[in-house]
């Protein structure tokens, strides 16, 4: 019996030596992954203000299909995309579609001037702390997030889209109850 105890101890030490990894470098999980991975997640909302100073947020549009566009005045693709968003909004607002543009990191005066210049009629919100862009994993601007009536993300899109691409993306969400 003593022999078996000694043998067990030796096996324990040998297996321990074989398995021992010596520590090794620590591994990091440094997550982001872009807006594409947000589908199905609850849409996060932050209280911000419109360009005229009235309080607003994504959550206020619960019950509508929301196309949330994150943009900034210095971003050339954002400027190119704006006319398509305006057309999308005008064509579908009676069907329960809301387009909101959320300026990232700039002031209300800059965002308001940009909206006037481009003839924007949909709500423009100002997120000077860039909370929406952080939470929606923006890897660039523009970033567009489509939110269904229940307040869940249907799709996150990185980069500028055409009107046809926007319509194809929102059509099934508008059809769904």
């Amino acid at each position, binding site marked *: *019996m*003593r022999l078996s*105890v000694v043998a*067990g*101890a030796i096996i*324990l*030490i040998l297996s*321990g030596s074989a*398995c*021992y*990894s*010596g*520590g*090794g*470098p*620590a*591994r*990091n*999980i*440094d*997550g*982001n*992954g872009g807006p594409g991975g947000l589908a199905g*997640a609850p849409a*996060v909302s*932050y209280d911000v203000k419109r360009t005229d100073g009235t309080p607003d947020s994504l959550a206020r549009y619960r019950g509508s299909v929301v196309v949330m566009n*994150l943009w*900034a*005045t*210095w*971003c050339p693709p954002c400027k190119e995309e704006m006319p398509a968003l305006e057309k999308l909004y005008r064509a579908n607002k009676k069907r329960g579609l809301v387009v909101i543009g959320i300026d*990232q*990191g*700039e*002031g209300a*005066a*800059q965002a308001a001037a940009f909206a006037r210049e481009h003839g924007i009629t949909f709500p423009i919100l100002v997120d*000077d*702390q*860039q*909370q929406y*862009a*952080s*939470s929606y*994993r*923006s*890897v*660039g*601007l523009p970033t567009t997030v489509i939110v269904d009536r229940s307040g869940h993300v249907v799709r996150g899109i990185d980069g500028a889209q055409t009107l046809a691409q926007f319509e194809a993306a929102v059509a099934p969400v508008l059809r769904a109850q």
Partner: protein
Amino acid sequence: MNSVLFAIAVAIVGIALTLAQDAFPAQEFYHSWQYITLLTVAIIVMLTFGHSARIGKEGSGGKPLALAMIGALAVTIAGFVSALIGPDTVTVIGTPGTVTPIPDLRVAAFFEQATPATLADAHATITLRRRDGGPIEIGNTPVPFGLSVLSRSSRIAAYVEARDARGNHLTVTQPNNTSFLSPVLLFRSTQPIAGKLLPFDTFATPGVHRIVRALYLDSAALSEFNHGIKEGGSGVVLSITDDQAKPRGIAIARSGVPLLAGDLLLKITLGRYPTILISSAPSPYAVISGLIVFAGGLLWFAAAMRKRLAAMPASPLPVREERPSAPVASSVRDSS
């Protein structure tokens, strides 16, 4: 009796070393050869003593002691296995306001949005969301989670507020990071300077075409950098270029103090932002059942010893010398 006390002491040390993995997680020591050797020695001692106790070599009370050793062995082997084949500690770094999936644990960690105030106070929270359970906030107390233990750590962070020379608020981007549009720098890189590795990060203000490299200096490094001027506190050295890489300025930013450099009005708030450490932990089932068996064995042993002591004569040696053996035997019977 000395060997009994020694074995129990070794068992307690083995258990304590194992439980330390839960109480003080994420220590490099648990994956060191020294820790493994300590547990191995404890296991060998417990195996040897437990075997000799079971076959009666340790006198009466052998079976209870063998049971206690089995319990302590279960705990210590769980600690041994966790230290040897458990994964190394993983640090989960999340951008403020984001949800970071942790596939190994089948959870997602929500990192609270940061403001200058929450960074300065290091108050931001991390909440774990599970599919089949309520949310768990990772606070200062380590949280056991299956074969892992989750604990909170923190890293240096800086909240950047940028304006142009006219005072217009500017978008801050981090072109080199996964958190492209976060105004919070987490200093994911390091820069070797004068034999030290200093936390380093980069941000840009595309609205005015500026790129800013930020080097974090703690108070000692800042004093050294500042030619011995001791102002106290940490700071950030900012090197500003335009997008053609032409230098536009260099400045030292102190936390919360606005400064004008390279046509930028910058306010950097320094603080800390939490991270999650995922460390391997001993199997909770093995630890709990082992502790129960160990405690049960010790209680059984204590009861056996008490019974044995109660069965002994009140004044052993002098009485034996004065009286013949028969009355002693009768006194034993009397006391029982």
